[in-house]
């Protein structure tokens, strides 16, 4: 590997990405938290009867794990299918990446097996999800109409990162625990050591480089959504009760629900 590439990708880019990520997230948080009003209203809760933080938390859990509001999309199921596949897949993949830097009390053989089969399967699920989302954006006229470069950049980048990652995991199968893992640990310990990655191949370099670009980009575009909704007053600001008598439970109230127009 060219020494220049090595220094750029494995020494400079990690710290640039880390600084951009942390700095960008702090910038976002400050800009959101310094906006103190909510258009003159006490509560702008969007879900009815969110009285108290228990309900707020439950709603957030349902959003994160079930994407439950998308159940209401009547004509187009591809968004919910693509989103669920991608987010579950990529979450498992990200957790699996922790295995590179956190020592696990399992044998190297099991570690390798988990990386190959669990990590590989999760990567394939994430790949299917991102492909569904990208194809949906390209094929549906209304999605094309509202999409510009900004809407294709992040999914395109993710597609490339996942593809290179899968090629490594399933095809090339480099010895990442003796190369990437010690390098990543050294970077995170702020004593970077480039020796272990001296011989890594193209797919590893491409995967790492694009992932670092993505990390740097996250706070500055739409990919900040994972952080933003946690501060959205429509979800996190509970409403308040009015009236002294709660509505009594009445079995059968509303004899019809959920039916759609023919």
């Amino acid at each position, binding site marked *: 590997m060219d020494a220049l590439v090595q220094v750029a990708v494995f020494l400079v880019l990690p710290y640039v990405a880390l600084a951009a990520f942390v700095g960008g997230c702090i910038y*976002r948080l400050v*800009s*959101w938290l310094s*906006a*103190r*009003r*909510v*258009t*003159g*209203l*006490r509560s*702008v809760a*969007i*879900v*009815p*009867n969110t009285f108290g933080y228990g309900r707020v938390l439950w709603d957030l859990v349902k*959003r994160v794990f079930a*994407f439950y*509001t*998308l159940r*209401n*999309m009547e*004509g*187009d199921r591809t*968004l919910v299918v693509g*989103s669920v596949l991608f987010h579950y897949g990529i979450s498992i993949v990200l957790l699996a990446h922790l295995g590179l830097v956190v020592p696990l009390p399992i044998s190297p053989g099991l570690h390798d097996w988990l990386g190959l089969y669990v990590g590989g399967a999760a990567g394939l699920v994430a790949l299917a999800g991102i492909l569904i989302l990208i194809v949906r954006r390209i094929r*549906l006229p*209304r*999605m094309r*109409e*509202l999409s*510009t*470069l*900004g809407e294709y950049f992040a999914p395109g980048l993710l597609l490339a990162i996942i593809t290179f990652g899968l090629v490594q995991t399933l095809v090339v199968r480099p010895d990442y625990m003796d190369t990437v893992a010690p390098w990543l640990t050294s970077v995170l310990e702020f004593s970077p050591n480039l020796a272990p990655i001296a011989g890594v191949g193209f797919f590893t370099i491409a995967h790492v480089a694009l992932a670092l670009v993505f990390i740097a980009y996250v706070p500055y575009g739409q990919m*900040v*959504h994972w952080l*933003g*909704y946690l*501060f*959205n*007053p*429509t*979800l996190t600001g509970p409403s308040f*009760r*009015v*009236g*002294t*008598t709660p*509505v*009594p439970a*009445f079995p059968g*109230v*509303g*004899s*019809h*629900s*959920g*039916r*759609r*127009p023919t």
Partner: protein
Amino acid sequence: MTEPAKLVFGNSSSAAPYWSKPELLAKLDKAVPRPPASGDLATDVLRGIREEVSANRNVKIALDVCVHCGACLDACPTYLTTGDIHNSPVGRADLVRSALRAQTLLGKWLGSWVRAKPLDEAGVRQLATYYYQCLECRRCGEICPFGLDQADVTRSVRSVLCDHGLISKYVGTVIETSERTGNNLGLPPAALRSTIEFCRDEIQEEKRIDVRFKIDEPAHAMLVPPSADFFLNLETLKGYMAFFHLAGLDYTFTTEHAELGNFGLFIGEKHMKHIGDHLIDVARKLDVRLVVAGECGHGWRALKQYVIPRLRENGIDSVHIFHLVIDAITKRSIQLDPALNGTTRYVYQDPCNYARAGDLVDEPRFILRHVTKNYIDSPHSRERTWCCGGGAGMLADELMPLRLAYAGLWFEDARAVGGEHIIRPCAICKAQLNATLPRFNKAAGTQLVYSGLMDLVYKALVAPSSPAPPSPVGQ
């Protein structure tokens, strides 16, 4: 009046409201003075938008976090019925985003690749047109995975447009009338009194009840209906009066603020606060302990989310009349006979500001169960309800093509479940149905009717054979 332009699916740019003239703006300035103008409309509007965005967290996050997934396109009544991407939650917000992005380095560099377009006067007109096509119904916020509510972005953008002289003539007129007279219709005290007395006589004739009421006198409670209930929805008004009487609650009407509606809500917060503060002043003046809201969706939102917290600071509580009716039903202090509402197939359609902004979802259903024998929910019910198509100032005559397009959604819903009588306990819904339902009935050969909920309570109320002792309902 010129004939409203016909809508073409895919392009609703022709559907703009009439704008307020300088004389009307000058009158509005008396209540809420506008900030000084620099002479360049686009610069002023852009500056105003930046200030609104940086001050309001719900607006800031709605603009920052959207991933353009398109879920809101599937939910938004304005996009579904017009097919114009600018007349959609994400499309409307993109008009704002592109103006803000044009000021960034990236926007200047990449231009239309990242949807960056400097705001000019034509752009301001485009903003105004499309932001006055939004119903502020919050259906986008309901379906959005991140809860991004573009309706409150609409309120913010309209606030800035109003600051710089762009406010629809209809909304401006209603706000000015409300601020000048205490109600949206400009009904003078004598007319209000006369209507109340007319309803008293009707109740006597129909129910054999001599209802007690006060007007502009100190009482335990102050009833604040929307002014349309003194004009168009007299059955609803009779429902309030008969209920209060039979529940034994000491209450007064006010002619100084005979209006639950608060059109200020539709254009940000300044006029909303001005109108809301007047209501608080009147409640204090009449020394009431409870303010009771009548049937009005957006009025309830403004009351609950702005007025009630301030009333409570003054030792005054406030509820919706549905809360009192439920209280009376559970304490058995009123008698209801659902058979009196016949076997009609009633279909309940939630007003958006009850279901998505006011926490009134189970309450009306509980009452419906006690006053009808045959009620069903609309296919899109609760937080998925369709706006009537008249919300946020859309009731202007010149916007009728849009109103009719939007209204097709709830009409189809009502037909899908074989509804005969639509229940929408909201003054704007009723006004919209009053104007649009006859047209749909004629076109479809149907005979659907509509009403509020207190109308049905009125019909179902049974006067006790002997006078009931005053009960402590709501006290």
